[in-house]
C-alpha cells in the first residue's frame, strides 16, 4: 500500500506513469495536430508533474516543467502554432524527463544539469517565443522590505453578510490576529442585528473595529486577510504616528462619549439617547449603563494625557482646494449677511425670522473663521530659517550678532507666509549689514560687542505685525538728505522723519558707502515695500540715532477677504478698503481750491490735501459734480493724505476679493473685484495704485 512507501517513491511511480502517457499523447498529436483535447491533456500532465516535483523538492524538474508549461499555455491560447519542429522539441523533452527519474533530486544537477539548461535555452529560443527570466523575478514577494519595528494598526472589518457560505469564519481571523499581535482594543458593532424573529442564523450581522500592536511585518497581518480582502471591506491603517508613548493623540480632540463608543463600551444609539439628557456625560454613562467608573476614569485620563500632548496630526490638502473653500465660504458669509440685512429691515414683521437670521449669520462667521484658520500656519518655520541667515551673514561680515525671536507661534495665512519670506529676509540682512555696526564701531559707541536683532510677530487690531529691530547706529538722516539732494529728489526745506525715511523706499536709493555682497544687490527697500503692499500691507520705519532701527510690517490676516466700504458713483459701486480710510467728510462750500499745476486741493484739518474726483479718474457717469453735494473720503496714501470724492456711502461689508488679472487684466488703481449680495459687481480700489496713477509717483 501507498502508505508504506516514501513520498519520493510515490512520486517516481506517478511521474513515470505520466511520462509514458505524455509520450503516447505526443505521438498521437503528431498525426492530428488540430486536436485540442490532446493539447489539453498534455498540458495537464506537465502541470501535474510540475506540481508533484515541487512537493518533493525536485527543483530542477519543476523549473523544466515550468518552461514546458509556458509553451503549452501559448499553444492552448492559440498564440503559438503546433509545428513538426515543436513536436520534436517536446519529444526530446520527454527523453530528458525520463532521465530525471534516474537520479535523486540532490544529484540531478550534477548529472543532467547541463543538458536541461541547454534544452531550456532551446525552448526559449524557439521561434516566436520570448519568455524572459525577469517575468519570474517580478513575482518574488517583497517581504524582505518589511521592517520589524513595532507598529500600531487600526483595522476595520466589515464582511459580506453571507461570509459563512464562503467557508470563512471571522472568528478564525480574530484568533489569528490575536496570535501575531496584541489587540489593544476591539469593538464589535452590534447595531445591525435584527429582532430575534428576523434573525437568520446563516448570516453575519457584526462588523469589527480594532486597534492592535505588532512587531511582525505588515505582510503577516495582511496575509491573514488574504482570502477575504477581495470581497469584504477590510481597511487597515498604520496609526503608529498617532501614538506617542502609548497615548492615543487623537483623544485630545474627541468627546468622552465618542471615545467610549469607539472602544465599544457603549453604542452610538445609547450615546445619542444619553446626549439628549444633557447631563454630565461620565455620570450618566456610569448610572445608565452600569459602566464601571474605573473605565470612565481611565478613558478620561487617556483623554487628558492626549490633550496635554496635543500633537496635531496632519492631513495634506491641495492649497487650491483650500482657496476654493475660503472663497466659497466668503461668498456664503456675504450672502447670509445680505439676507440678514434684508430681514432686519423688516424685523418688526417677523421677530422669529429675524432671530433665526441673526443666528445664521453668527454661525456663518464662525464657519468662516474656522475655514480661515485651516489656512493659517505658525510663522515659526520661517523664523527658524532666519536664525541661520543671521548666523551665516554675521560670520561673513565678522560681526557678532544674537537674534531674539518672539511670537513665532503667531499664525498667518500660508500664502502670506510664503510671500513675506523674501521681504523679511531682506530686512534681516539689512539689519545685519547696515544696522548692527562692526565690533570696533560698537565698542567706540560704548555698546556691547555683540549686536542684537529682534524679530517679533504678534496680532494687533485684526492685523499681523512683524517687526525687525536692531540696536545699531540708527538711520543717518543727513546722509539720506544728501543723497536725495544729489538725485534731485530733495530741494531743501523741513521734512518730517517719515518723509525723510520715505526716500529709502525709492528705487536705486542707498546710502551705504560700499555695496556689499549681503544687501546691496540692487534689490532695495523699494522692492520690499512693493511686495508688502501687494499683500495689502504696509511698512513703517522708526529710528533713533545711536540706538537702533525698527522696521514694522503690518499685514492683513488673510488675503482673500477685506473689510470694505461701498461707495456709489452714479450707477457704479466701488469698494474702498477700510484700512485706507482715515475718515469721511461732508464738505462745506468753498473748501476746494484750484492751484495751477497742482490740481484741486481741499482743506482738511488746517492743511491742504489733493482732491481726486473718482468719476473723473475712471470715467464714470454721475450727476454729483459739486463737492458740496458729494462725500469725501480721506485716504492714507504713501506720501500724502488724499481726498477722494464720491457720490455717497452705501455701507460697510466684508468682501471676497476676486483677482481681475486672473479674469480680465490688471487695471491701475484697481486691486480686484467682488460680487455684492445682489449679484452686482463692485471694483475694489487700490489706494496706493490710485496715488501713483494720479500723481505719477515713482513708488
Amino acid at each position: 500500500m501507498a502508505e508504506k512507501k516514501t513520498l519520493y517513491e510515490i512520486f517516481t511511480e506517478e511521474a513515470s506513469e505520466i511520462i509514458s502517457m505524455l509520450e503516447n499523447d505526443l505521438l498521437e498529436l503528431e498525426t492530428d495536430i488540430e486536436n485540442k483535447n490532446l493539447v489539453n491533456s498534455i498540458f495537464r500532465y506537465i502541470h501535474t508533474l510540475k506540481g508533484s516535483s515541487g512537493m518533493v523538492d525536485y527543483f530542477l524538474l519543476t523549473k523544466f516543467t515550468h518552461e514546458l508549461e509556458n509553451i503549452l499555455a501559448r499553444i492552448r491560447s492559440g498564440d503559438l502554432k503546433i509545428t513538426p519542429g515543436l513536436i520534436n522539441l517536446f519529444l526530446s523533452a520527454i527523453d530528458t524527463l525520463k532521465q530525471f527519474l534516474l537520479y535523486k533530486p540532490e544529484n540531478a544537477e550534477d548529472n543532467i544539469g547541463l543538458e536541461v539548461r541547454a534544452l531550456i535555452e532551446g525552448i526559449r529560443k524557439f521561434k516566436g517565443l520570448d519568455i524572459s527570466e525577469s517575468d519570474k523575478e517580478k513575482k518574488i514577494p517583497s517581504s524582505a522590505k518589511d521592517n520589524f519595528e513595532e507598529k500600531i494598526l487600526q483595522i476595520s472589518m466589515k464582511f459580506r453578510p453571507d461570509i459563512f457560505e464562503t467557508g470563512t469564519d471571522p472568528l478564525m481571523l480574530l484568533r489569528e490576529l490575536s496570535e501575531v499581535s496584541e489587540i489593544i482594543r476591539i469593538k464589535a458593532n452590534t447595531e445591525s442585528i435584527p429582532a430575534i424573529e428576523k434573525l437568520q442564523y446563516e448570516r453575519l450581522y457584526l462588523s469589527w473595529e480594532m486597534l492592535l500592536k505588532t512587531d511582525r511585518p505588515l505582510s503577516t497581518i495582511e496575509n491573514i486577510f488574504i482570502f477575504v480582502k477581495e470581497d469584504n471591506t477590510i481597511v487597515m491603517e498604520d496609526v503608529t504616528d498617532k501614538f506617542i508613548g502609548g497615548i492615543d493623540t487623537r483623544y485630545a480632540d474627541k468627546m468622552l462619549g465618542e471615545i467610549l463608543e469607539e472602544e465599544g463600551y457603549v453604542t452610538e444609539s445609547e450615546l445619542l439617547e444619553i446626549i439628549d439628557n444633557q447631563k454630565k456625560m461620565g455620570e450618566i454613562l456610569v448610572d445608565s449603563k452600569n459602566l464601571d467608573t474605573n473605565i470612565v476614569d481611565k478613558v478620561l485620563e487617556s483623554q487628558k494625557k492626549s490633550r496635554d500632548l496635543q500633537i496635531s496630526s496632519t492631513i495634506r490638502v491641495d492649497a487650491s482646494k483650500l482657496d476654493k473653500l475660503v472663497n466659497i465660504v466668503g461668498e456664503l458669509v456675504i450672502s447670509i449677511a445680505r439676507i440678514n440685512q434684508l430681514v432686519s429691515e423688516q424685523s418688526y414683521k417677523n421677530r422669529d425670522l429675524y432671530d433665526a437670521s441673526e443666528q445664521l449669520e453668527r454661525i456663518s462667521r464662525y464657519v468662516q473663521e474656522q475655514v480661515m484658520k485651516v489656512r493659517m500656519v505658525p510663522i515659526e518655520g520661517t523664523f527658524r530659517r532666519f536664525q541661520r541667515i543671521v548666523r551665516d551673514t554675521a560670520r561673513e561680515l565678522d560681526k557678532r550678532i544674537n537674534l531674539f525671536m518672539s511670537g513665532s507661534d503667531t499664525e498667518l495665512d500660508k500664502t502670506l507666509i510664503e510671500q513675506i519670506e523674501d521681504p523679511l529676509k531682506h530686512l534681516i540682512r539689512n539689519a545685519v549689514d547696515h544696522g548692527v555696526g562692526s565690533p570696533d564701531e560698537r565698542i567706540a559707541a560704548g555698546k556691547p560687542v555683540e549686536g542684537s536683532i529682534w524679530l517679533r510677530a504678534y496680532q494687533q487690531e485684526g492685523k499681523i505685525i512683524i517687526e525687525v529691530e536692531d540696536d545699531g547706529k540708527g538711520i543717518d538722516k543727513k546722509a539720506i538728505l544728501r543723497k536725495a539732494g544729489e538725485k534731485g529728489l530733495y530741494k531743501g526745506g523741513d521734512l518730517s522723519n517719515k518723509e525723510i525715511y520715505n526716500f529709502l523706499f525709492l528705487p536705486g536709493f542707498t546710502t551705504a558707502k560700499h555695496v556689499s555682497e549681503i544687501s546691496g544687490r540692487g534689490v532695495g527697500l523699494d522692492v520690499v515695500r512693493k511686495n508688502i503692499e501687494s499683500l495689502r500691507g504696509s511698512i513703517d520705519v522708526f529710528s533713533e540715532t545711536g540706538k537702533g532701527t525698527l522696521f514694522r510690517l503690518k499685514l492683513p490676516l488673510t488675503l482673500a477677504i477685506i473689510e470694505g466700504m461701498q461707495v456709489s458713483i452714479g450707477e457704479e459701486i466701488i469698494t474702498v478698503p477700510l484700512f485706507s480710510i482715515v475718515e469721511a467728510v461732508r464738505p462745506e462750500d468753498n473748501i476746494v481750491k484750484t492751484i495751477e499745476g497742482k490740481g484741486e486741493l481741499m482743506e482738511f484739518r488746517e492743511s491742504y490735501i489733493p482732491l481726486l474726483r473718482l468719476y473723473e479718474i475712471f470715467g464714470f457717469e454721475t450727476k454729483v459734480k459739486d463737492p458740496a453735494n458729494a462725500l469725501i473720503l480721506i485716504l492714507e496714501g504713501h506720501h500724502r493724505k488724499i481726498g477722494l470724492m464720491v457720490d455717497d456711502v452705501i455701507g460697510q461689508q466684508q468682501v471676497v476679493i476676486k483677482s481681475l488679472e486672473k479674469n480680465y487684466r490688471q487695471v491701475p488703481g484697481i486691486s480686484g473685484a467682488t460680487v455684492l449680495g445682489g449679484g452686482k459687481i463692485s471694483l475694489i480700489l487700490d489706494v496706493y495704485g490710485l496715488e501713483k496713477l494720479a500723481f505719477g509717483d515713482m513708488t
Partner: protein
Amino acid sequence: MNKRILIVDDSATLRASVNFVLTDAGYEVVQAKNGEEGLDILKRLKVSSSKIDMIISDINMPVMDGITFVKEVKKGEFRFVPILILTTESENAKKMEGKAAGASGWLVKPFKPEQLLWVVKKFVR
C-alpha cells in the same frame, strides 16, 4: 474527535504529501482523484451522517475539474464547509474563478508542509 479533511487531486504525489502532512498533524484525511470522486465521497459521508471539516481541491483535473466540483459542493448539504483550492502561479485567474465559485481560499503549488498547515488552521481548529 479528529477533524476530517478531503483532498481531491489527480496527482498521487500531491495527495500523498497532503496526507502525510495532515495525518502527522492529527487530522483524518480522505482522498479523491477528481471532482466526481470527491462528490461521491461527500454523498457517502452524508448518508452515514458523518461530517467533513474542510475540502482541499486541485483545479486542473480530468473527469471533473476543481471549479465544477466547488460549484457542486456549494449546492449541497456541505455548502458551509471551507474549500481550499490548489493552484499554481500560472493560474492567477483561477484563484478568482475559484473564489467566485465559492472556494474559501487557495494555496499555491508547490507548498511546504508549514504553509499547508497554516492555511488549514485558518479554517479548521
